[in-house]
């Protein structure tokens, strides 16, 4: 397998006057990759382009070595896609549905049927595989969508909000399946999700988009170490002035409901600067801890969500 299955250069795409993607450059390694970004960041547009549904206005790219502008059909033969919204074909049972979509991907009929049974067992739908799809619960539909995405044994799987609408147990089970799939070294899983904890539990690499631009990308562990110093502070007296002072030196400050102050310290500053401002503003520091940065913190820092 190539180290980079997905590579795009200077990708631009506009919906009329609205810039959806503005010069995105990406090289994605194998394994599970999280695609993050607020609404309107360009995640869906990027997936549409990678799947070959949309042709970029400018830029170029390769998915599995196939040109995203010219070889869209070939790309779709070797990728699996699990859409966010519920989708089914009424009147079918899970076996027919899964084998049908396997056939459409290019599997021989008998093989598709055999493989459909296997993947339905794999995703835990063995008991209900002959039930009409319209009677399925949300959790079962989610599993079914995963089954149809992997039936033809794709080399890349795009998962769009794979855990949406699931109860906590169902969520854990789907994430376990995704982790198991992505543990195969020759399958790449690209997950677009708003649930950051899901991404953090499954992915080792993230791509963060904001306003159509690439805000950050890299291994989660590297991003945590290199870019951010997060401190949790509990302060007393002149808190507002203290927070303003921190903001004036370039820190991003977030205050939680239990009055915990989260301070994202820029790399050029050091913790002593926080203490100096507290002294200046005559603020008592009662709790000062260097926090373990989570993906949520990275996302908040990069995207600028307070």
């Amino acid at each position, binding site marked *: 397998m190539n180290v980079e299955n997905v590579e795009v250069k200077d990708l631009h795409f506009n919906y009329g006057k609205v810039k959806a993607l503005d010069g995105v450059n990406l090289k994605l390694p194998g394994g599970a990759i999280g695609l993050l970004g607020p609404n309107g960041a360009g995640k869906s547009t990027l997936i549409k382009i990678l799947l070959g549904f949309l042709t970029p206005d400018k830029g170029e790219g390769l998915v599995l070595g196939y040109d995203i502008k010219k070889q869209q*059909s070939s790309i779709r033969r070797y990728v699996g896609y699990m*859409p966010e919204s*519920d989708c089914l074909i009424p009147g079918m049972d899970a076996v027919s549905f899964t084998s049908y979509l396997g056939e459409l991907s290019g599997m021989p009929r008998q093989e598709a049927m055999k493989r459909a049974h296997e993947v339905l067992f794999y995703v835990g739908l063995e008991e209900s595989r002959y039930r009409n799809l319209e009677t399925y619960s949300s959790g079962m539909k989610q599993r079914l969508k995963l089954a149809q995405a992997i039936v033809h*044994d794709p080399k890349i799987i795009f998962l769009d909000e794979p855990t949406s609408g699931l109860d906590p147990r169902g969520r854990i089970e789907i994430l376990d399946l995704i982790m198991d799939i992505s543990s195969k070294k020759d399958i790449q899983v690209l997950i677009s999700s708003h649930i950051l904890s899901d991404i953090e539990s499954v992915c080792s690499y993230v791509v963060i988009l904001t306003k159509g631009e690439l805000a950050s990308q890299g291994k989660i562990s590297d991003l945590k170490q290199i870019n951010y110093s997060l401190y949790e502070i509990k302060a007393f007296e002149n808190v507002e002035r203290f927070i303003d002072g921190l903001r004036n030196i370039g820190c991003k400050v977030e205050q939680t409901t239990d009055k915990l102050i989260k301070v994202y310290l820029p790399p050029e500053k050091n913790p002593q600067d926080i203490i100096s401002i507290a002294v200046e503003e005559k603020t008592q520091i009662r709790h000062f801890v260097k926090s373990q940065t989570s993906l949520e913190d990275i996302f908040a820092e990069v995207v600028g969500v307070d």
Partner: protein
Amino acid sequence: MPIKEKGYAHWDGKLKKMKFPWKPITRYGIKLTFKKKFFKFSFFLTLVPALIYLAGIYASEKIEDFSFLTRDTDTLSFLKVDPKYFSSYFTNEFLLFMIVLLMVFCGAGLISDDLKYNSLQLYFSRPIKKKDYFMGKAAVIAFFIFIVTLIPGIMFIIMKLIFSGSFRFLASFPWLFFSVIGYSIFITTFFAFYTLFISSINKNRRYVGIFIFGLYFFSEIIFGIFFGIFKSKYFALLSLKINLQQVGAGFFGQKPAYDIPWILSFFIIIMICILAAIVLKRKIRSVEVVK
């Protein structure tokens, strides 16, 4: 050990580039149609005219055996098997009515269900092009219409030859075989575009069914109203049914029921197909494939 505990397993086959990617769409479309309530009954009813006309072909060869039914031999002249016989089968009102009914059962949900249940994104995330998708859906319609047009038409010719025991019939009307094929393709093409077009404009299969039925009969009513007021035969061109019948008469070399060149009706039907194709192309393109 259960499969899910063994972990993800690769498939050891190889994905092929399909020659006819629309074939699975058609096969499953036909399979699902047969699962629909009342479909089998209405499909059987659609075959009734074919059975009657087939019996007529048999009777035409044994006309003396049936002469006891009437004193006047002219009464049995309708049993004469000639292009008019074929024309009357292909353009009879009951058959056209039953084809419209078949479209309600087999065609109404073809695209509207995909729109309602967001299945388009599943199709188009596969190596399926828009033309393959339409082809697959249209072939479902073609399958059912051919069973009540093309197959009986060819059967009539074969049975006539078998019952008569000579090739005289074929020698007298060598073009009839091509007329059967031509008109079957024509009527199938029209109903495929007509049904898929209406199926693509609404997500509710029931409304689509009503539209398919309604539009067909509405065109007939409109013709009736205008014809009643202005007494002009050209208003017959407003009726889908009459246009199909006019073209049918043309294909089988018969005098059309309305004294208007059948080629006009032919062009009207072709125009409807072209318009339907344009709308279909736009409607399916405008669907968000990835939300």
